[in-house]
């Protein structure tokens, strides 16, 4: 059966599948990444940066799928075959020792801003900002207006009159708008290796899982700390972080009780006298002038 199929396959393809299989088997973490939108110079830059940590190989999608399926069969690992479902667009195989989360983070960090292309879906709200474009009056003014950007000539230059969101996240960017944004130097998309899926140790991780929300993590840490602090404090557990506050509470309690009962202690004598004086001053402020003495009037 296998020989029959091979008979129709060009030798270089067999060689390529063999290479891909070797690559897949060489590392514990196997990722499918998409590099379709990455311009060649930028791709080279990224490859240089990550060369030490990953092995990357572009190939035909059909060959990648075939390599994955064959390895899955050889290793009796059906999960690995599932990775083939994620192969699309300009797929490449990436293998590494890095954990999937670190890999994802590294690849995200190595993305760089690029102009949006016509027909592309806006990855975020795309906004133009008020201010001079630095461009002399010319047809560009009309182009701006034609895509709904309020513009005018100010001080001899084309200026955008107000901040405006020109396309919302998820909307398709028209070629005309894309050209205008490019001329304005707006680079709303980030290009780089786009993770499609990562396999490690029987688990497939997709980008929605791999994207760690650091803000949420930070908030969770703070909540956890607050919870711990509150629990320790409310149960008077003498953790070193909490003890100073327990001491303060005890002191404040004592001080409040001392003032409330007008029981003078050396720590609170001043407070109690000041309280009495404040009350006297407060009362005096409600009295007519002839009822109070010079001392207070000042």
């Amino acid at each position, binding site marked *: 059966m296998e020989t029959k199929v091979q008979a129709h396959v060009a030798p270089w393809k067999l060689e390529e599948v063999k290479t891909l299989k070797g690559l897949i088997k060489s590392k514990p973490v196997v990722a499918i990444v998409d590099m379709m939108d990455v311009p060649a110079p930028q791709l080279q830059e990224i490859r240089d940066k990550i060369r030490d940590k990953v092995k990357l190989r572009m190939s035909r999608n059909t060959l990648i799928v075939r390599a994955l399926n064959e390895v899955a069969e050889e290793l009796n690992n059906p999960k690995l075959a599932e990775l083939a479902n994620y192969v699309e667009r300009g797929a490449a195989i990436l293998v590494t020792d890095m954990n999937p989360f670190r890999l994802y983070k590294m690849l995200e960090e190595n993305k760089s801003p690029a102009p949006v292309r016509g027909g592309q879906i806006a990855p975020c709200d795309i906004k133009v900002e008020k201010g001079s474009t630095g461009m002399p009056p010319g047809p560009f003014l009309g182009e701006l207006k034609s895509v709904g950007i309020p513009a005018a000539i100010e001080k001899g230059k084309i200026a955008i009159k107000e901040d405006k969101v020109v396309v919302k996240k998820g909307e398709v960017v028209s070629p005309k708008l894309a050209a205008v944004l490019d001329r304005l130097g707006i680079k709303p998309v980030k290009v780089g290796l786009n993770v499609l899926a990562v396999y490690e140790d029987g688990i497939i991780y997709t980008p929605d899982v791999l994207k760690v929300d650091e803000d949420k993590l930070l908030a969770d840490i703070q909540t956890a700390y607050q919870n711990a602090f509150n629990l320790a404090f409310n149960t008077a557990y003498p953790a070193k972080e909490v003890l100073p506050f327990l001491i303060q509470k005890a002191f404040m309690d004592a001080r409040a009780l001392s003032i409330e009962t007008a029981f003078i202690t050396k720590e*609170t004598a001043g407070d109690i006298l000041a309280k009495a004086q404040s009350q006297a001053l407060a009362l005096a402020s409600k009295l007519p002038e002839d009822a109070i003495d010079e001392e207070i009037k000042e």
Partner: protein
Amino acid sequence: MEYIYAALLLHSAGKEITEDAIKAVLSAAGVDVDEARVKALVAGLEGVDIEEAIANAAMPVAAAPVA
């Protein structure tokens, strides 16, 4: 200020604040009582809610170090 303290003392002890009471307290403290001021004080306190007035007194928040 002693007139005010006399009034507060009486109020705090739950006594009525009359001219005689104020005079008695001040005299006991050895103060030379000024009748006019006593009258003015008692008159002035009419209609004043002492509880409210002193409740609103600014509390010393910081523990003043008493050396």
